[in-house]
């Protein structure tokens, strides 16, 4: 092991602490800015209707065993029959999501805003760190690591003799970037900005096709094995009562 480095206390006061505090504050700022920029568009009635329909069908599927077989079959028919079931989408009427996205510029705009609110602060902070703090050894990780981590932890220092557990300021920035997510979820509530953007990416932009999800819901409703639970619950109640009476 290499000899211990002696770090100036000024580095702690002027690099390590400010860098961490700034990272936290920028995270909070980004959260509120993205909250401000979020345009609340009026949802399309048809899409809302389809979403609610899927939820209803899913509820039926989840609670299928709590109703008698006859009722279940009646309800399934209501959703699934080939002529006018609710989950059947007439052919040719299905909307192309790509076309829908182009026809509604608000959607693309929203996504772009979200992405920008992520990227701009990160680039700015990175530039700031690079400009002021490049080349510092700012911290030391309290556990030993192998040489492979050198490029990750000592980004910006080109010395091969320094022990790997010393962290350069630029790498400390990256550690903060990833490690503070937990703190943000504590102080900003569960749906903090980062998770939000990820969820939005999955949901809105890329291929949310209502007719397809209706079809999928129909298929899974078709294959439900119905098994009424009430008779079994009588046995269960009997067992519980017997145990109590004993």
């Amino acid at each position, binding site marked *: 092991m290499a000899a211990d480095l002696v*770090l*100036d*206390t000024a*580095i*702690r006061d002027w690099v*390590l*602490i400010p860098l*961490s505090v700034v990272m936290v504050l920028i995270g909070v700022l980004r959260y509120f800015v993205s909250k401000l920029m979020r345009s609340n568009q009026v949802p399309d009635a048809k899409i809302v209707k389809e979403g609610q329909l899927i939820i209803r069908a899913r509820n039926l599927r*989840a609670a299928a*065993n709590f109703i008698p077989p006859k009722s279940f079959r009646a309800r399934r028919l209501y959703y699934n029959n080939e002529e006018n079931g609710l989950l059947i989408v007439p052919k040719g009427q299905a909307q192309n999501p790509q076309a829908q996205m182009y026809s509604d510029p608000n959607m693309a705009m929203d996504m772009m805003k979200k992405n920008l609110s992520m990227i701009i602060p990160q680039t700015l902070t990175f530039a700031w760190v690079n400009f002021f703090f490049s080349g510092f050894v700012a*911290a*030391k*990780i*309290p*556990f*030993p690591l192998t040489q492979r981590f050198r490029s990750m932890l000592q980004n910006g220092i080109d010395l091969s003799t320094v022990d790997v557990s010393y*962290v350069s300021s630029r790498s400390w920035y990256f*550690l*903060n970037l*990833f*490690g*503070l*997510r*937990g*703190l943000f*979820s*504590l102080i900003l509530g*569960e749906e903090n900005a980062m998770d939000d953007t990820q969820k939005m990416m999955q949901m809105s932009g890329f291929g949310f096709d209502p007719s397809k999800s209706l079809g999928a819901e129909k298929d899974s409703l078709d294959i439900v094995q119905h098994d009424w*639970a009430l008779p*079994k*619950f009588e*046995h*269960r109640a009997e*067992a519980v009562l017997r*145990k109590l009476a004993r």
Partner: protein
Amino acid sequence: MGVSEKKSSEAAFDVPTLNAENLQSNMKVIYYSRTFMSIIGGVIAGILGFTGLTGFIFYFLIMTVTSVGLIAKTGFTVYSYFDSWSQIILDGFLGGLLSFVLFWTFAYDLVHIF
């Protein structure tokens, strides 16, 4: 004997009786407390000056304490809140590790390095 009997009856009447939304909210509580505990544990580990393996053992200990606390909070009837035991013991275990390491390093550096 009572426990085994309960287990067998659970298997026999295998009907999910948990509300999905409530289950999700319970999971959220687990993640929240795990993150909280990992951050606090990281600061404590850093101030006490743990290095190397000791710190990770400390993390493991913290997570065990959290699990026991959560189980005690359910009144030792895990099945009325969660699907299985593994959910209450394992979920959020790795997610907290990064926060733990960050705050461990931070507190350790502030107190011991300079």
